[in-house]
Structures are given as structure tokens and as C-alpha cells.
């Protein structure tokens, strides 16, 4: 499911596998900010469809809170992911809400994602088979979920970047593909707009995620 977000949050972490030197280098190349915002451009290529479905907007990620995914085009829609739930809203009206209680799988994935935020690298190695290459200041990595159920839920993930993750491509088992590119990344708590902070529940930074 939520993997694009997961990948956005990878920032520093994620792709670690002790024996792979490339992973260690990628780890070193990525920055580890508490908060980060940027623009995205998303392109879904669906099996049996002539045209790709495009959307774009802005995203923000908070290390201990979760992610806001604010689509501006073709129409405004906000998706908020926290430890306990995913909500989607249009014009301040919540259109759907999925809680951990209703779908425990969400909890598992959120937990994975937030652990990664906290810098727990061992986590991804347990869930994904990771292969990576580094070429100068840029790198590429591929994450394949080990579990068949996870592969269906998440798909296969290719990512690339330098100091930040720049491209994410998710390929689902049936062939549908979502490609996201990021631009204009800025870091630090100050980059969040007041309404964005509010969406995470103000004040920002209440409890640290992990000691």
C-alpha cells in the first residue's frame, strides 16, 4: 500500500544490508532532517489504458508524526498518514478514513515506515530484498518485498536519488505502475505552513518516536 510514502521517508535510512557497501554509501549520501517538504509529480500508467494519469502537488514529512500528501492537480485532495490511521480529505472534508483497528496491515506498514523514520535500518532488511548501485553522486536501489502478501499490497519499488530521494517507481504485480518524481526539497521544521502543522496536530513534536 503506502509505499510511495515510505520511500519518501527513506531519506537517510532504509536500504541497508550490512554486506553491501553500496547501501552504506547511499546511507551516507542521504540527509536526515526532522522535517522536510517538497513538490511531487506523479504519473500512473495503468494496464489497458492509453493515457497515463497525472497528478501533482506538495508533500511534507515529519519525523515523528507522519506524512501529508497534498495533491493540487487535477483537483485538490489531501492524504494524511499517521501512526494510527490514513485519512483522505477534500476541501477540509474527510472523505475516507482507515484506522489501524480496521486494517491491522496498516499498522504493520506504518510501524515499518515510522521505524525507518527513527533510523531503524535493520527493519527493511527483514521485509525487503534490497539491491543497490552507486554512480558518483547518484544512486539507485530496488526493494522487493519478501512476503507474497506484502508484494501484492506494496509492489516492487525502484528508487533513485542523491542527497534526497528523487524518483520512486512502484510496479504492482498486475503491471500497473506509479512513477513519482520529487523536486524543490527543503528541510527543517520552519518549512511547514501553519495549516500543514495543524494537519499533524499542533504543536508539532510532542513525543519522540523512539528513544
Amino acid at each position: 500500500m503506502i509505499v510511495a510514502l515510505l520511500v519518501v521517508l527513506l531519506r537517510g535510512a532504509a536500504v541497508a544490508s550490512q554486506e553491501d557497501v553500496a547501501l552504506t554509501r547511499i546511507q551516507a549520501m542521504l540527509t536526515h532532517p526532522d522535517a522536510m517538504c517538497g513538490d511531487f509529480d506523479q504519473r500512473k500508467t495503468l494496464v489497458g489504458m492509453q493515457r497515463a494519469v497525472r497528478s501533482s502537488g506538495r508533500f511534507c514529512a515529519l519525523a515523528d508524526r507522519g506524512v501529508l500528501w497534498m495533491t493540487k492537480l487535477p483537483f485538490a485532495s489531501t492524504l494524511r498518514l499517521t501512526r494510527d490511521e490514513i485519512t483522505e480529505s477534500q476541501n477540509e472534508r474527510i472523505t475516507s478514513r482507515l484506522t489501524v483497528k480496521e486494517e491491522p496491515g496498516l499498522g504493520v506498514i506504518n510501524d515499518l515506515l515510522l521505524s525507518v523514520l527513527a533510523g531503524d535500518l535493520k527493519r527493511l532488511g527483514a521485509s525487503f530484498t534490497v539491491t543497490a548501485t552507486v554512480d558518483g553522486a547518484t544512486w539507485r536501489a530496488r526493494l522487493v518485498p519478501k512476503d507474497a502478501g506484502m508484494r501484492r499490497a506494496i509492489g516492487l519499488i525502484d528508487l533513485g536519488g542523491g542527497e534526497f530521494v528523487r524518483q520512486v517507481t512502484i510496479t504492482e504485480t498486475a503491471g500497473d505502475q506509479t512513477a513519482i518524481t520529487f523536486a524543490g526539497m527543503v528541510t527543517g521544521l520552519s518549512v511547514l505552513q501553519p495549516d500543514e502543522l495543524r494537519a499533524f496536530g499542533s504543536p508539532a513534536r510532542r513525543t519522540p518516536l523512539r528513544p
Partner: protein
Amino acid sequence: MRLVRQPVALRSAHSVSATRWHRRLAWVWLFVVVAAVAYNAKVWLGERRSLETDFMALLPTDESDPVVSRALSQVAVSAEQNVLVLVGAPDWAQAREAGLRYQRVIARDSALLSPALMASMGSDSALASWWDHRHGLLTDEDRAALRTAVPGEWTQRALHDLLSPLGTGRIGSWKEDPFALFQHWLRARAADTPVRPVDGVLRVDDGDMHYVVLPLQLRAPAFALQAQRRVVPLFVEARDVASRVAPAVRVLEAGMVFPAAAAATQANHEFSTIGWGSILGIVIVTWLTFRSLRPIGLILLSLGVGTITAMAVTAWWYPNVHLLTLVFGSSLIGVGEDYGAHYLCMSDRRQRGAVLAVLAALPGLSLALFTTLASFLGLAISPFPGLQQMALFSSVGLAATWLTVVLWFPALDGPQVGSARVIQWFDRVREQWERVALGRTRGALGVLTAVLVVIGLARLHANDDIRLLQSLPEDMIREQTAVGRVLNTPFAAQTFVIRAASEQQALEREEALRVRLDSLIAQKALLGYQAASQWVPSRARQQQDAALLTRQLFSVGGEIDRLGAALGEGAAWTQEMRTVTLHQDSVVTPSDWLASPMSAPLRHLWLGQVGSVWGSVVTLKGVENTRMTDVAQAAEGLPGVVWADRIDSISSLLGRYRVRMSWVLAASYLIVWLMFLPRYGRAAWRVLAPSVCASLIAAATLGLLGQPLQLFHILGLFLVFGIGVDYAIFLTEHRHSPPGDAWFAVGLASISTLLSLGLLALSETPVLRAFGATMLIGITVSTLASPLFCRTSSHSNVSDPASGGQT
């Protein structure tokens, strides 16, 4: 002396032939006993037959309704074979590691324990049947939303989904399920269990704890002793190994095998402690009495022969012998010690000639045996398979003990033994007791007893709840409950059973019931339920849903055209989407579901065809205790749906039989009184009075102590009847023996009965404790009351055929 020596001389010719016949019969009996020993060796050592330990196997199967009884047993059996283990820690990596180590230990005995399938949303191929028929599968929410949809609403939903960066998590591509209806349906099915596959294991979360779920299937009956002995140490070791991963690791185990093993261990333990305790007690008492090892040897021989014969006959008659039959049955055979004691207490048997002494005692011994067997008959006519087995076991055992005493004791008897001092001591106790009971305080004592009995009986109340009969360790109950809560598993004992004339009607009836259950869920009366129709909607429902979906989403000029336009697709795309949907006309059937691995943990819900009827079961999760009656009433007015509460039905059955057996007990007294009339005449009531008093006092004591009366107390009173009457018979019959002999025999028998059956009052097994307590009070009172009622018999005018008209 003069009175008894005379008949020997008079009937010497007769006695020679009697002795010869007696010897022949003794040899025949030896042959039978050897055969019993051989049969036991064949069954227990050769075939290695194992003992049944399921407490429920002692209970009647009840229910005249075959569908209901099949449903309850199918649900119960599926629950019995399951073992669920949760290995958890606040840290997932530690939890996973501990879980894997636990699994490795368990995997060593894969013949007995195998990983079970669990509803954790399997592979795409397992879901193929549903994917192929997806257009007939709608969640309740989607169905409602489709019915009231406004044009454009579902197109918006579909487009909105496409903006999400989240993977779709679908089977197949977006195009094959553009409105995510099947995705919703699958999510609703997945919501049935909080377990998810993560990192190669099954995971469930509970607050801060993350657990690895290890569903295991026991490949042997949970109640088979040998399986328990192999499996339980493995679980102990696995728990130990897992706990060593980190201090925070917590292991929760649930499954019928754990309480079953605990109960069996307890019964075994009690069998050895109480069993050996009573044997030791009897040995000590006999030693003190006779100052010789021979009587002890003789008595142990008679009891041993009784037990061995009983085991052989029971094993021959029943394929499964219950552990409790052995525990309880061999205690009952301990009553047979009376016969041996009775013989050994005849201090003049050498003068009379051993065989003739036995023949002289035969009427009394026979009456004693028959009344006891009559009381066991009371157990045998109860509908409880366990009690029938115990009745058979004990009857055979007692009869064999009796035969051993009658046929073998005269030949094996050694020099006359018996301590005059002990006999005198017994007699002095009796005299003093009679002085107290029948002296000046007689009236006061009688009134006091009567008042206490009346108060006790007035305060006596009954409680037949089967749960009172279970005795599980606290922490085990807590673990089982915790596992059930974390995994959100249904409670197997309370279910709805559906009966229908056809497969489809069964599904339709389930759907009707589910409407009511859904509204109870909305009222928070229960958390959820499991039903086959959640996976396999009825044909009618699937066809209606497919029609609704076609009309609202795929009609010409409808949502699918709008969606196509919004995505820039032409008429060809729309037409293709429409064709894909409309070409379907088949539906998912119960056999699809049963054939799929997805149904593995739920197959017990589907009974299929039982005779001419189709049946299924709906199990419930998290029923609010205070709303139980509301939930049970959900079946009301629905044809073919019944509420089946196993606990309630067994409890009420216990209650019915408590009442019925009380009447049988009263009738038994009446019948035995009629049997006694020819022999004892107007004094017949005196033979029964001690047992009646004992029963009333035992029941009143329960009332005074605030203990509820249960069926098992009544069954205990049956034995008080059988044994208590023996004492009165001995006292009445033995007025021609040397003074003190009869009372000595009764006192000795009573002490050994208290040592064997009364000690059961110490048992932790509630059923045995109820028996034991009843026996303790009942036998004590019977013994003390016997001389009070039967005293006058020594100078009564009752005829005594045994002494051949010597009076």
C-alpha cells in the same frame, strides 16, 4: 461357641460336598482371573491403548436434534485440535526472533504438531474463485452506497483513488476493479482477523506488544494421554527457549490440550497420592487390627483381583476407557474391602470351618453386594457415558472382589488372627457413643440434629452450572482469554445453528440472521461473528449484487462512460469494461470455498448435508455478557435458525438429572425396603434408617455451608445408600457371631471406606470433591447411626435362615 459348633457336626456330610464344590469354583475363578490378567496385558501393554481424559466425554451427547449435536461437536472438535501460540515483545525484531526460535523447537515433532493455516489473506491463487466472481460480491457499505448513489459519485471516487500515491493493493490491475469494490470486499474479509503476514511470519499487535502468531494443529486427540506426554514438554521447552531471547518476551499459549493436560496431570497426581494414601491407610488400619501381614495381603489381593477384572471387562466393553473411571472406579472397588474385613472379623471362623463360615455369612454378604450393585445401577441408568462406564467398572470390580473373598479366602486363610484389644476398643467406642446418643441427652441431641437438618435443607440451593465443575489454574485461564482477545477468535460453546432444505436456503437463512446480528453489533452487544455466507453469499444475493452493480455502474451512459471520458478513453474502452462485467453469470459456491485454502480455519462452520437437512453454524465473537439473552433471541422468528448454547444445554441437563436421580434414589430406598420386608419384617426400616439419616445430614451440611447442591452430590448419596445399608445389614445379620465381631467389621469397613472415598474430598477435581465430601459425611453418619437403629435386632424375632433355625 456351642451354638456354632453344633451345625458342623450335624451337617458333616453336607459340608464335605459343599467344601468340594467350593474348591472347584475357586479353581474356576482362578482361571477367570488369569484370563483377565492376560487380556489386560494384551490391551494395555500389547496394543498400548491410551486412556481418555476428556471431561466432556463423561457427559451425555444430549440433543435429540442431530444437526445441532453435530454442529456443536464439529465446532468443539475443531477447537480441540487447535493450539494458538503468541510470542511477543514490545520490539518487533525481538518478538520475531523469539517466535522463530519457539517454532524451531515445536518443529522437532512435526508428526504430532503441524503448522495450521490461518485466515491471513492468502495468495492470489487461493482467492481466484472470488476474483473470478467478483461482480457478485459487495460489502454491505458498498451495496448501500450503490443503492443511493447520485450520478458522478462513483466516477469521482475512482478518480480520487488514482491520485493516491498508495499502491492499490489489488488482485489484478486497476482496470479490472476500477471502483475498488472487490478490494473493499477483500478488506472486509481480512478484517475478520487482526493477523497479518509480516517479514515471513504471522503478526498481530496488541497495544505496545507485537506478537508472532503460531497457529498449530495437534495431530492427535487433545485428550489422549500419550499425546499430551509428548507435546507438553515440547511446549515447555519452546517457551523457555523463546523467553531467553529477551526479558521482555512474553509467550501466550491457548488450546484445549493445555487444560486437558493439566486436568490429566492433576487426576494422575491425585490418583497416586489419594490412591496410595488410601491403600497405605488401609494397610496401617489392618495391621493395627490383625497384627499380621496375611489379612493385609488377602485384602489387597481381593481388591487387586477386583480392579484387574474390572479393567479387563471395561476395556473389552468400551473402546475408550476414561482416566476418571480408573481413579473413581478403583476407589469404589475399595468398598469391596468390606467383604474381606467382614470375613476376617469373624473371630470364630476356624471353629466353624472356613468354608462353612463363609457359607453362613453368605446371605449377609450377598445382600450387601446386591444393595451396592443396586446403587451402581442408579449410576448406570443415568445418561452419562462416563458414569455408565464407572458403574460397569465398579460393579464388575466389586463382584470380583466379592467372589475372591467368598471363593479364595477360606483356602488362603492362615492361623486365626485378630487383636482382642482392638475389637474391645471398637466395642467400647460403640458403647460410649450409644450411651451419649441414647442416654439422657437423647431427646436434646435428636431435636438439635432435626433442627439443623431442617435449617440446612431449607437453605440448600442447587446450581448446575457446568463451569463449576472445571478447575483450571488461574494463569492458564488468563492466557487462554488473552489469546482469544488478541486474535479476536470466536467463542465455540455458544453458536447459532442453521438448518435448511438446501445448500442455498442455508446461506439465505444465514444472511437473514446476519442482518439481526449486524444491528446487535451496531448496538455493541457483540463484536462480530463468523459465517460461511460471509465468504459465500447465497446465489440470490450474488445475483442481486451483480445486477445492482451493472445497473449503477456499467449501464450505458452511466458511471463507466463518465470515467472513460474523464480518463480520455474512447467508446471501445467503455465497451470492453462493460463486456468484462457482463459476461459473468456463475457464482461462488460453498464447494469453491471448501476447496480453497482460505476456508481452512473456518470449515467447521459448514456442516453440509446431515441426513436430509443442510446445516451450518454461525459463531460469535465478544458477546457482551449482559446482552447474552438479546443475542440468543436473534434466532427468534427466523425459520431454521436455533440458538445452541453448549454450556447452557449441558448445565440444564445436569439439573434435569439431578432432579431425576433424586427421585430414583428415593425409589431405590423404597424398592430395597420392599426387598427387605420378607427377611426383616417390621424391622426392615431400621436397616435403611441410618443411610436415610446420613443422606439428609449430608445434604443439610451442604446447605449450612452454603455449597450448591449438584448432580454429583446426589450420585454420592447413591453410594451412601449402597454402602450405608451394608453396615446395617452386617449389624443385623451378625447377631449370632461373637459379640463385637459385627461392629468391629463395620467400624473397620467404615474407616477404610473413609480412607478410600472420603479422601476424595481432598481432590482438586470438583466432581471428585463433591463425591468425596458427600461420602465423608454420609459414611460417617451411616456408621454412627447404624448401631442406634440396629441395636434392637440382637433380640428381635427376625428369622435367620443362615443359622438354620437355631433360635
